[in-house]
């Protein structure tokens, strides 16, 4: 009886401090809602970044994440592009491949020190040589504009290709590494007069839902461009597997690293990809030669013959 009276008193009659308590609880609820919203946003970001990090770069390639800071904007935005927050100061150069966890997004069209413009594969000016994953049929995939399907060009009438097949980069243009997924075949048609099939494909990413992307760098290119290994590049210490392997278990060989043909001249970055073999070690010198200080070449693509000419030129000049 006493308990019931006490409960009745405290529940229905004694309201001292209830208003202040109510205000305090409402304030706490607002703060908790705000915190919950921020945490949900963080969780979403973590999930996206985790997917980005789960993407294993091909051998001799490293990746660097970038955030999309702007999509098409303004009257001069005539191409299908977006802007990312990394530029030449972080080693980005024109034609750097840009990928998402789902597949190839595009390539860098132009750069500034702190930002870069990425040309999407959906733009009509984008053409990428691809190969179908199952039947190994080659072609060139071309964008057709926003919210339109891509077109696979130059596939001969008799070439085998199936609907639903994934198209991967062939690496022939030496911009994208081989084996990155680009698009999925949606329809295959035939035209009576054309020598080629009419093939449509959809990109594997949603352009308007992208928030973060990854750029791929050849390990040597990034080292020589920045002078030092870029800090955010994740270390690939485990055996690297290519993203896509052809059926039959045959693993495609990684393309040889482009750039200077004298890998010994480039100081290997600690922990950056596979170690570059030094041909100097394989050919033992008959006599010990005092080691000269080696310099990293200033031009990435400078041929060794050119470098040799440049070294010889001052000698001739001094002799005249």
């Amino acid at each position, binding site marked *: 009886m006493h308990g019931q009276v006490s409960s009745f008193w405290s529940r229905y009659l004694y309201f001292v401090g209830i208003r202040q308590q109510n205000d305090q609880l409402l304030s706490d609820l607002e703060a908790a809602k705000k915190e919950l919203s921020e945490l949900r946003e963080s969780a979403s970001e973590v999930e996206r970044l985790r997917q980005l990090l789960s993407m294993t770069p091909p051998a001799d390639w490293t990746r660097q994440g970038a955030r999309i800071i*702007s999509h098409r904007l*303004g009257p*001069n935005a005539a191409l299908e592009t977006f802007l990312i927050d990394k530029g030449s100061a972080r080693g980005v150069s024109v034609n750097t491949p840009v990928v998402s966890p789902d597949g190839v997004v595009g390539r860098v069209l132009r750069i500034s020190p702190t930002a870069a413009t990425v040309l999407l594969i959906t733009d009509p000016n984008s053409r990428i040589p691809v190969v179908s994953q199952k039947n190994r049929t080659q072609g060139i995939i071309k964008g057709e504009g926003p919210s339109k399907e891509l077109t696979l060009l130059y596939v001969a009438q008799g070439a085998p290709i199936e609907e639903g097949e994934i198209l991967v980069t062939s690496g022939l243009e030496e911009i994208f590494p081989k084996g990155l997924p680009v698009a999925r075949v949606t329809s295959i048609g035939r035209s009576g007069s054309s020598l080629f099939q009419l093939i449509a494909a959809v990109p594997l990413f949603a352009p308007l839902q992208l928030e973060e992307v990854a750029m791929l760098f050849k390990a040597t290119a990034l080292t020589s461009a920045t002078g030092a290994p870029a800090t955010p590049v994740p270390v690939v210490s485990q055996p690297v597997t290519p993203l896509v392997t052809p059926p039959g278990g045959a693993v495609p060989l990684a393309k040889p690293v482009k750039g200077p043909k004298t890998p010994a001249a480039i100081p290997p970055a600690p922990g950056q990809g596979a170690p570059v073999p030094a041909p100097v070690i394989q050919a033992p010198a008959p006599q010990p030669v005092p080691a000269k200080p080696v310099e990293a070449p200033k031009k990435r693509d400078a041929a060794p013959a050119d470098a040799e000419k440049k070294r010889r030129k001052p000698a001739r000049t001094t002799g005249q």
Partner: protein
Amino acid sequence: MRPANIVFWSLVTLLGVWLQNLVPGVDFLAPGLILAMQEEKWTVPVWLAFIWLFIHEGTGSMPFGAGILWYGALAGLYFFGHWLFEARNFLFMFILGACLGAMHFFLINVMALLQDWSIPMERLLTESAQQALIFPIEWGLLYLIHHYLPENRHAA
């Protein structure tokens, strides 16, 4: 410049960039430039054009110079037109908007031709039409707001 005007032009810039993000291919800052040429000292439109040019050149995908041509042609059209029309007439703004829409189509086509690019024509036509329609309406709104700014001699 008065503080109210500084706030006004800052808000015009922010809202213009936001709207340009929502409707790509349309210049929401151009009506502001015309209004600045009509209502402010000559230094104000020069500064605004300088800042907005950087925004357009940085965010656009055309080679450097397209923005200069764009705003240069707009200023030229305005100076040429205000000899023939009353500068604050809505009809003049409507004609200016139509010229701007046509210029967007022409300029992008020429720049794309020089770069050997292909541009989707349907989208370009849509953007040109949007530009022609949005320009006079936005100018009218900005004109009204600007006239009701505090310390404005036209303010009621």
